[in-house]
């Protein structure tokens, strides 16, 4: 049934493009719909290039046609590095377009289309909700080995973030989690307010992947590498793997996917908030 649904959507998509007045300017929608991210589409271009359009924004060209977002907007990114990374994703596709491997494109689409129609405050609130149930704040009472592991691995990160932002978070093994003071929330809210819309999109994506504000900020602030953050986020799973064995088609599969998504989110935050740094570096030489 799902397949026929996808087929209908595909037909609907081609209908849409027939409606265009000029067939040459047919919209190049990346994925037709956000919900069909797993669906693959035939590759319809050979050459990928980037160009700088109005207002210094970069665009992606597929065989001289401009890439558009699923929402129909022109696909534009604020700097060259991000444009090249996105172009590389499109260039890497073989016979079919695998949208589930194009994380940076997906993030740009989300930031451009804003499909959930949220503003910055709402995004910050939903990101900070993860603080109440932060992975590194929930501890177990047993088994002993896991208790030790969580203490040894998570405590340093928790201490680091408490010192870095001068806040109290704490950890707890009760089902209600730790009591997080209002002041901590305010500090983080203020800090997140300094991010622009694009980097906030990326940061929220990272937080939802890692299920942790602490680990996400640790990684964005370059205290942790992506691999470390993912490892800490999956600590209990890693413990169980060490005990019961690793299953490649579930554990490794999940881990690589989580790593790819987290890395894409981190890079997205970095590239969309640091455009001034790139310029400064160019001027230094």
């Amino acid at each position: 049934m799902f397949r026929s649904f996808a087929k209908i959507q595909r037909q609907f998509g081609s209908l849409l493009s027939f409606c265009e007045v000029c067939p040459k300017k047919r919209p190049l929608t990346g994925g037709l719909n956000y919900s069909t991210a797993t669906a693959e589409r035939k590759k319809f271009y050979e050459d990928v290039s980037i160009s700088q359009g109005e207002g210094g924004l970069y665009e992606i060209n597929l065989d001289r046609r401009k890439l558009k977002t699923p929402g129909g907007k022109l696909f534009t990114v604020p700097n060259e590095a991000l444009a090249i990374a996105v172009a590389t994703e499109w260039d890497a596709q073989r016979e079919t377009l695998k949208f589930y491997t194009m994380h940076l494109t997906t993030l740009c689409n989300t930031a451009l289309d804003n499909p959930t129609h949220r503003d910055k405050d709402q995004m910050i609130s939903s990101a900070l909700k993860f603080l109440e149930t932060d992975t590194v704040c929930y501890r177990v009472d047993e088994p002993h080995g896991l208790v030790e592991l969580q203490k040894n691995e998570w405590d340093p990160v928790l201490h680091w973030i408490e010192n870095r932002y001068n806040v109290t978070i704490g950890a707890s093994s009760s089902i209600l989690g730790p009591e997080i003071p209002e002041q901590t929330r305010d500090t983080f809210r203020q800090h997140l307010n300094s991010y622009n819309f694009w980097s906030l999109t990326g940061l929220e994506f990272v937080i939802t992947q890692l299920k942790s504000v602490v680990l996400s900020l640790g990684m964005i602030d370059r205290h942790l590498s992506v691999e470390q953050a993912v490892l800490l986020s999956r600590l209990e799973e890693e413990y169980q793997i060490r005990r019961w064995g690793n299953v490649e088609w579930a554990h490794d599969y999940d881990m690589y996917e989580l790593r790819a998504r987290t890395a894409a989110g981190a890079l997205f935050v970095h590239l969309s908030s640091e455009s001034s740094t790139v310029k400064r570096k160019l001027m230094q030489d």
Partner: protein
Amino acid sequence: MATLSSPLRVCRGILKELRALQGPSYKQSLAYSYVMDQFRKNKVTGERYCRAQQEAHHASHTYLCLLASTRSHLALHNLYHAKGERSPEEVAGLVGLRLPTQPGGKGWEK
């Protein structure tokens, strides 16, 4: 500060991933020239503490992780999950059973 492998290794890692993605002509790609350019520009010239360079190092490491993980994930996906579900006949065959081909068993009479 997270302990990262040396910039040279990261650079070679990224180039290796780009070659895996784009084949032998990867040296003509946009990404190749951009990556080489960035690594050359951020080369250390002294023992000074340089924030921009650390940022670039972390970002390059993140990009390498993105490329490598996406490739591994896709490989596992193609190996285990890309073929969709097995048909009922195949599933039955896995546990040594066969689906009935000839109608006429119990419940057929109604």
